[in-house]
């Protein structure tokens, strides 16, 4: 998979999402339960707001000094006998990894969940090179077995699938014969994947944070697949976005707490591991360790007006509160990064040509900004994108005309007042039962997904009420 998961029009994708009632229910209830769990785990920390500030400061400090920390990391990894490679583009990153695998003459690869490997299209490159590659995160494994169905949530990639769909996939692809209970399905996957861990020659993982002064990576998981991926195969290749680094274990601890609590409402997840090249006398762990640091457009964000987007620790909390994500689902974003953070970073990494609609897929309610554990002003960044898109004349000519007309109307109190007076009678033909059901492009787009009330009668309007009150109080 690449950054782009669906090449169709944004409107086609959202129509699909809005029409998928299972997915919408699943997303709604996942949002509700994750929101509550996040809140209780956050409250348990004491002053959550201060923790958020600490998280923000750590991320900002690291970004401001990124070259320093990456250099320190490189020195420490090499000191321990590991390899580090800096890839400016996705092609460089995946071809480096392919070369390591080819040199090892490895064919069997296990992989734990990693967004950046999706971004660099690694699976595709390795499968093309003739490798057998298995995703070992249960959610990702389900998607792979279902012909690489794209993920729909950063933390719960298979959220859009129900147990019967999963049972069907396992039956068709893996000769599964049992019922659709999640326990049985998971136990079955455990058995199949266990064999893959034992056979694999190379393990590929992502990296939640690299620890600069230690020369190690930090993985945060619940299933244990990341650890098995790194511990058993003789070669471990970890891949990280260049910004995912902390100075020391002390800052890592703060961010891991923010991450676990924000992502899944746990104080800490089941497995948090700090690992690197093996030490003398170790009998498992990698005999060869590689860390690939990926830029792929990130340095263009660094120092720009979108710099704060790089603070993201991929917890998914902004997805779990977003009303737009709730309704359209993850696939509608057409990107491996959905939700509010997806709407900010996808256009930065993939350009406005393919993603100019995403910054408009927001109600600007700022719930995402309020929840973000590292205080990224997400809704403000979405507004910045919108301004850029308008400045670059990327909106449609009809939309520009309508917006210009609306702008003229809204900036003239007299004209606005007059229009309001006629709004009710003028909208009569377009309305039914107090709701507008027909209209030109702008209105049509709105009512396609939401209700729009018919304007009230002149005598019931707020302005009429205010004028009357002013009259009564003699003002």
């Amino acid at each position, binding site marked *: 998979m690449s950054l782009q998961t669906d090449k169709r029009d944004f409107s086609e994708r959202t129509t699909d999402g809005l029409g998928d009632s299972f997915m919408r229910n699943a997303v709604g*209830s996942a949002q509700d339960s994750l929101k509550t769990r996040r809140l209780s785990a956050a409250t*348990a920390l*004491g*002053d959550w707001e201060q923790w958020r500030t600490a998280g923000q*400061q*750590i991320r900002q*400090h690291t970004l*401001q000094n*990124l070259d*320093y920390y*990456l*250099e320190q990391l490189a020195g420490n990894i090499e000191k*321990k006998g590991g*390899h*580090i490679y*800096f*890839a400016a583009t996705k092609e*460089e990153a995946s071809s480096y990894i392919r070369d390591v695998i080819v*040199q090892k003459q490895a064919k069997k690869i296990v992989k734990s969940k990693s967004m950046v490997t999706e971004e660099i299209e690694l699976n595709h490159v390795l499968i093309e090179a003739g490798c057998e590659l298995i995703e*070992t995160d*249960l*959610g990702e494994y*389900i998607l792979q077995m279902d012909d690489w169905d794209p993920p729909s949530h950063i933390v719960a*990639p298979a959220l859009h699938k*129900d147990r019967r769909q*999963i049972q069907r996939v396992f039956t068709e692809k893996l000769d599964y014969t049992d019922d659709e209970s*999640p*326990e049985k*399905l*998971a136990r079955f996957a455990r058995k199949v994947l*266990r064999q893959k*861990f*034992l056979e694999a020659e190379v393990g590929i993982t992502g990296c939640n944070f690299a620890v600069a*002064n230690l020369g190690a990576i930090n993985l945060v998981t*619940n*299933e*244990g*697949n990341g*650890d*098995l991926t*790194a*511990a*058993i195969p003789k070669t471990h290749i970890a891949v990280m976005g260049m910004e995912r680094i902390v100075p020391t274990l002390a800052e890592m*601890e703060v961010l891991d*707490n923010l991450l676990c609590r924000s992502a899944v409402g746990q*104080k*800490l997840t*089941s*497995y*948090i*591991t700090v*690992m*690197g090249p093996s*030490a003398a006398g*170790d009998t*498992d*762990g990698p005999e*060869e360790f590689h860390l690939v640091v990926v*830029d792929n457009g990130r340095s*263009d964000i660094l120092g720009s007006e979108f710099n704060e987007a790089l603070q993201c620790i991929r917890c998914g909390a902004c997805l779990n509160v977003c009303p737009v994500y709730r309704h359209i689902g993850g696939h509608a974003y057409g990107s491996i990064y959905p939700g509010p953070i997806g709407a900010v970073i996808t256009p930065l990494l993939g350009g406005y040509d393919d993603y100019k609609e995403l910054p408009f897929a927001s109600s600007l309610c700022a719930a995402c900004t309020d929840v973000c554990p590292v205080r990224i002003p997400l809704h403000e960044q979405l507004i910045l994108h919108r301004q850029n898109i308008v400045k670059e004349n990327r909106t449609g000519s009809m939309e520009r005309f309508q917006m210009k007309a609306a702008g003229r109307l809204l900036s003239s109190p007299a004209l606005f007042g007059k229009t309001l007076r006629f709004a009710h009678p003028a909208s009569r033909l377009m309305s039914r039962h107090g709701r507008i059901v027909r209209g030109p492009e702008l209105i049509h787009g709105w009512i396609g997904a939401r209700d729009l009330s018919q304007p009230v009668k002149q005598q019931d309007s707020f302005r009429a009420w205010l004028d009357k009150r002013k009259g009564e109080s003699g003002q």
Partner: protein
Amino acid sequence: MTVSGNHHTSGNNKEAFLNTIASKLGRERKREVQLPDIQSLLPDSYGSLTQDDLIDILKEQCFFIHTQVIESKPEILQRTLDDLIEANGGGSVMTSGDPRFAAYGLTFPGSFVWEEAAGREQNIMRAESANTAVIFADYALAESGTIVVESRPDQGRSLHFLPAHYIAVIEKERIVLRSTQAAAALNRRVQAGEPLGSSINLISGPSNSADIEMKLVVGVHGPLSATYVLI
């Protein structure tokens, strides 16, 4: 261990990559950095706690992470562990080579010990076929119900993940409040130039996943159950 061949022997692109970063940040390369004092920002939400308070916090948290906590004593530790192993259905046991097993006089006839001499394949095979793993915790973190363990020649990484059941013995004096204390202690060692194990694991209960319809399933790739024995 170098890999011969194209990319990685002809350099790792570091200089160009880091120069790009510095130029995007509008400055020269940074050669020195002052770390801000983040810890002083963090509130102390618990106040002072006794060791008994920590044990209570740990027990309460373990309820939420599907982990059984058994209180025992050094004198009866062997019996407690034997009972637990039997409750797991018996089968083979694998322990780490931690000297504390000998210090507490623990023996498990017919069990395997993770040892450097056995080599990679043997150790992994033994761990995979073991029904129960028994290890000693380096620290326990009360707030999250976490144990901290470090890999060593006598305690491999996969020992914690391959056996079906996992038992961690926690000496009460090793219980601290949070991950903050453990991270600070480990960090002090790094700063003093002391080597840490190549893998530091923070383990909070058994493996689990909510990938299918957000329903929590305990026991996914790693252990199916976890038990902490407090002594």
